[in-house]
């Protein structure tokens, strides 16, 4: 597996081209800009992981593009965000499967936790599918921490703060585990 960590996005745009078969893992954290993943080979198995922790008045605007040009490749995107205070998060993601990219599998998932009443999330996961023999899904959830879980943890003697931290850590862990 080839691991790529994106440290920054210069000039608002970064393009990664995958033209050889293989397993790839891309990770980025708290970045803004356009991230373009061009899949130009069959047999690419691409995993994209993004993590956002927003505090105070931080603003993140991230757009991702999963472009499948060649058949029989897989891309799997997961972006998780936790937003405190007045932080704002704007996410637009596009999966585009071109005509020739039959037998593509493309997934896109964006999950956000709002920890403050003043945080704001904009999420637009888009699909443009021009081939027919494909399997594509996207999902987006935005919400608060599970109140029952917090209550349970409190009943076991944790403070509300500790309970929240535990649940947030668990939420983020899905990304970290995938990082290996």
């Amino acid at each position, binding site marked *: 597996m080839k691991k790529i960590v994106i440290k920054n996005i210069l000039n608002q745009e970064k393009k990664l081209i995958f033209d050889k078969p293989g397993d790839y893992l891309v990770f980025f954290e708290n970045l803004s800009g356009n991230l373009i993943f061009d899949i130009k080979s069959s047999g690419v198995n691409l995993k994209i992981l993004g993590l956002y922790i927003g505090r105070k008045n931080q603003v993140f605007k991230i757009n991702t593009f999963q472009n499948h040009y060649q058949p029989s490749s897989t891309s799997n995107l997961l972006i998780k965000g936790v937003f405190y205070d007045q932080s704002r998060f704007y996410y637009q993601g596009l999966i585009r499967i071109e005509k020739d990219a039959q037998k593509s599998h493309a997934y896109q998932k964006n999950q956000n936790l709002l920890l403050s009443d003043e945080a704001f999330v904009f999420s637009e996961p888009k699909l443009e599918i021009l081939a027919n023999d494909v399997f594509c899904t996207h999902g987006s*959830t935005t919400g608060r921490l599970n109140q029952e879980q917090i209550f349970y943890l409190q009943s076991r003697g944790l403070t509300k703060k500790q309970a929240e931290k535990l649940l947030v850590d668990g939420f983020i862990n899905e990304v970290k585990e995938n990082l290996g």
Partner: protein
Amino acid sequence: MSSKKLNFQYRYGFSVPEVSIFKAKKGLSKKLIKKISQLKNEPSWMTELRLKAYQVFINKPMPTWGADLSKINFDEIIYYLKSTDKPKSSWEELPEEIKETYDKIGVPEAEKKFLAGVSAQFESEVVYKSIQKQLQKQGVVFLDMDSGLREYPELVKEYFSKIVSIYDNKFAALNSAVWSGGSFVYVPKGVKVTLPLQAYFRINAQNFGQFERTLIIADEGSYVHYIEGCTAPIYTTSSLHAAVVEIFVKKKARVRYTTVQNWSKNVFNLVTKRSRVEEEGVMEWVDCNLGSQVTMKYPSCILAGEGARGEVLSIAYASSDQVQDAGAKMIHLARNTSSRIISKSISSRGGRTSYRGLVHVGKNAYNSSVYVSCDALILDEKSRSDTYPTMKIENNQVDVQHEATVEKLGEEKILYLQSRGIKKSDAEGLLVNGFIEPITKEIPLEYTVELNRLINLEMSGSVG
């Protein structure tokens, strides 16, 4: 598969000679709008609203997103057509050609099947309506919009254009300027209309655009189900259908609005549908889009009162040269509001379906929940499917879920059905009908049957 079957003939593609008494020239002008308003004997506020809307229409640019609308030539459209002087109240009084058309759609039969009232729109004026005595006894008003304005001017003035303003979009402005026909429904407090109200819509004159306007007011604690089914004959030149529907759902009221549209494949169907839902009210849109060249339609619920609920169930089917750009909008403005959008789309033979939606949870909409699910089937390699959902969340006491899938028909399933002796095309039809079943079970049976039959016809020979 024989080649004959590949060419699906539009079922209601027939046209009868026009019987219009007044027919406007092609194109739109201030003079024509004044003339329409004058012919209808409208109060001056309506004339002014029409003229203002006309200005807005002229000034607004064409939308730059969604389907290609450049083929619409606004100068080639007839904006007003009146087929008989005033709406007829009995079937016998109707002109012979009109009856003939209705016979082919089956209006009289439909009426026999417990229709609460049939209001059939034929060439822009509602010419036939029958309201059962029971409805009148309950105090329910079910009129064409023109009569509604004449008989209940105060009520219409209070609500008309209050959800869909003339400044909303270019086509809503156009409709406000030249509207004609449509339904006016008022359900008094606590009244439950048990039988659905139905309106049949029809475009008949060549190049004739239909601009109906519907206003439904469901007072506190009432319930009504309104159904529109649209069929239109085939033309060689493009027709425009730009309707506006406004629905007011008062406290604890519930309204269901069902559409089954099967416009012929040259119609531009650009409709603005919106509802405002008060405290604990429920609004349900059931929207089935099969026909037309281009459909752009996003039924909306403004959830303005605490505990209001909105729901949109939609089916879109796009075949060759068709674009179905449909979706839904849910705007949460109050506490404890909930919404659900379920969209199923099918594209075949080069058709394109798009789901375009908006979910907006405002600052004060604490404890709201949203569920959006869009499933798409792509039946062949020429077709295309897009999903453009937008979610704006402005407070943290919410649960928002969105999911979408795009796939093709399961090969194993088809193979299994074939192994049981079912023809491939029938197997595909079966699977497609199964795919949309969660929505078709919500619509009246006669429409479900017709929908299933249409899909079977479209399916026969569409793959392979």
